[in-house]
């Protein structure tokens, strides 16, 4: 079974530039998550999709971050414009929709460096 795919794996940009990350979840997984993991911290949930609808985006900085999941499969996360503090690893995860009992499978992440 193929895992969660993410691209690119690494990205270096200057502040105020824009960047986009792509995620392809495990086939059949209805729920998709984007996390931000800053160095020395645990992953923090940014947004959760159930199919193509948003379930939780309470921790997404909506003035600069946006995410979409067209057709309920692939998802993109965009930052526009980037700030220095956005330097982090952005993780995508997916799971089957089993209320409270499912396991999240994580992708390899995209390491973003903002200069």
């Amino acid at each position: 079974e193929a895992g969660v795919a993410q691209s690119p794996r690494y990205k270096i940009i200057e502040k105020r530039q824009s960047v986009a990350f792509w995620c392809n979840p495990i086939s059949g997984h209805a729920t998709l998550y984007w996390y931000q993991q800053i160095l020395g911290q645990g992953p923090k949930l940014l947004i959760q999709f159930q199919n193509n609808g948003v379930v939780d985006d309470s921790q997404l900085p909506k003035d600069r971050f946006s995410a979409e999941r067209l057709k309920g499969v692939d998802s993109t996360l965009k930052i526009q414009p980037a700030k220095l503090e956005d330097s982090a690893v952005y993780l995508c995860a997916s799971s089957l929709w089993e209320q409270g009992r499912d396991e999240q499978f994580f992708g390899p992440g995209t390491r973003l460096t903002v200069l």
Partner: protein
Amino acid sequence: AQSVSQHNHHVILSEAASLELGCNYSYGGTVNLFWYVQYPGQHLQLLLKYFSGDPLVKGIKGFEAEFIKSKFSFNLRKPSVQWSDTAEYFCAVKAGGGNKLTFGTGTQLKVEL
């Protein structure tokens, strides 16, 4: 909102030593508890999970964890570590039957030969 505390940020052990990593959470209701591991250069993967039933949970690679509800704890243990256990370990909690995972800050484990 729930939170998770991992008390040990860096742990160094010799091979064959016993391991216990602490994890405490703050939430008064029903919780699901997880330990994830991230080996160097690899992505996060599930080590073990607790949903209900026996509070002693066994996971992969000889790891186990015990849920002590009265102490709001879910400590990870392994009787004898190996060099290949060198990794970062994250405790995580889901509260109230929802799907939102809250992670601790992680513990870097280094096992020396």
